[in-house]
């Protein structure tokens, strides 16, 4: 009987202390991390929709059409004269070791203006090359893995090895990224279609 009490107290107490310490550190670092994330978000937005655009966050993220992929914040892209030129959608797609969070810019004509990765935790040297600015899928034109999506339209198939050149030895990551881009494109395009009417 005595050992039961000893176990409950030791394990309970140590877990409570670790839980408390985790929460304290999390609360202290949360604002700083949030500020950093905002900075990366803004950089990503300007990369995806180059030019002087204003980004207006929608109050409710759009509905995902694939259960495995979750949609984050969406931003309406307004040009200098206040007209809507497109939409940027945050999409989380499951990679091999973790979630890949991407910003996908969709123009009014249903083509992709740009893709940028906010966070990913793929295998270094293999999957991580998706975000590597010096890793070229097409050496002659020096286009990186993400740049190959620019200009593709919602009519394309987005299948790896056919109209999407994969990363060497990282098919899971390549599929995850192209699926994420395709879903974001479909959702964005249909949203813009309704908004346009």
């Amino acid at each position, binding site marked *: 009987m005595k050992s039961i009490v000893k176990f409950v107290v030791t*394990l309970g107490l140590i*877990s409570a202390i*670790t*839980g408390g310490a*985790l*929460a304290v*550190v*999390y609360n202290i670092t949360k604002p700083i991390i949030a500020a950093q994330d905002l900075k990366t978000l803004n950089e990503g937005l300007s990369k995806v929709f180059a030019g002087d655009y204003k980004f207006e966050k929608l109050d409710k993220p759009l509905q995902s059409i694939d*259960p*495995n*992929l*979750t949609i984050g914040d969406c931003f309406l892209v307004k040009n200098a004269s206040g007209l809507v030129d497109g939409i940027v959608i945050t999409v989380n797609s*499951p*990679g*091999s*070791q*973790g*979630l890949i969070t991407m910003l996908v810019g969709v123009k009014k004509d249903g083509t992709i203006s740009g893709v940028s990765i906010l966070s990913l935790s793929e295998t270094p040297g293999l999957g991580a090359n998706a975000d590597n600015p010096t890793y070229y899928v097409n050496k002659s034109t020096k286009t990186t893995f993400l740049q190959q999506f620019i200009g593709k339209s919602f009519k394309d198939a987005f299948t790896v090895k056919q109209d999407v050149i994969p990363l060497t030895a990282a*098919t*899971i990551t390549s599929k995850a990224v192209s699926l994420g881009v395709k879903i974001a494109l479909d959702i964005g395009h249909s949203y813009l279609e309704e908004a346009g009417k």
Partner: protein
Amino acid sequence: MSYLVNLAKIFVSSTIINNIVLIQFLALCSYVGLTDNLSSTLGMSYAVIFVTVSSGILAWTIDHWILIPTGLQPALQITAFILVIGSFVGLVEMYLKKASPNLYKAMGIYLPLIATNCLILGVTFINSIHNYDFIESVVSSFGVPLGYMLAMVMLAGIRERLRNSEIPQFFKGKAIAFMITGILALAFLGFAGMIK
């Protein structure tokens, strides 16, 4: 109907196509260590299946009922999951010590190592990344350790046959096990892409 197809897809992909050992390369510590005889392999696989399924279910409930609504997921997720897994391993250790001492003896150091076994934590992470609902995560928590068992039994079988064949002195013991695992991993690469 398509929900059942989806479940079947998850099951097949977790056991064979994304086999945790040969494709995702997790849980290698106990995989190579224990496969010199078949009995400890099977014993280990049953223990891993039990701990994975029970941890998978509890981890999913913690994640969806406590961590996500309170927004504490980035801070507590790893610790909460590992506490659950470590405790289940503790329970299995006590049960095995009593129920089948020789199996407990055969597993030795590898039993506590299941706790940080990349496989179980891997499964809880896969369930959380793929945003599985309850039933899907149960299927995946069952499929992944089955894939582990499949890979282990294959290697154990091969190594048992190797015992009565002459291997060069250099490769005796664990070195040949790594070579075989490398070749098995190559074979399993063939499955990639079976599911669209």
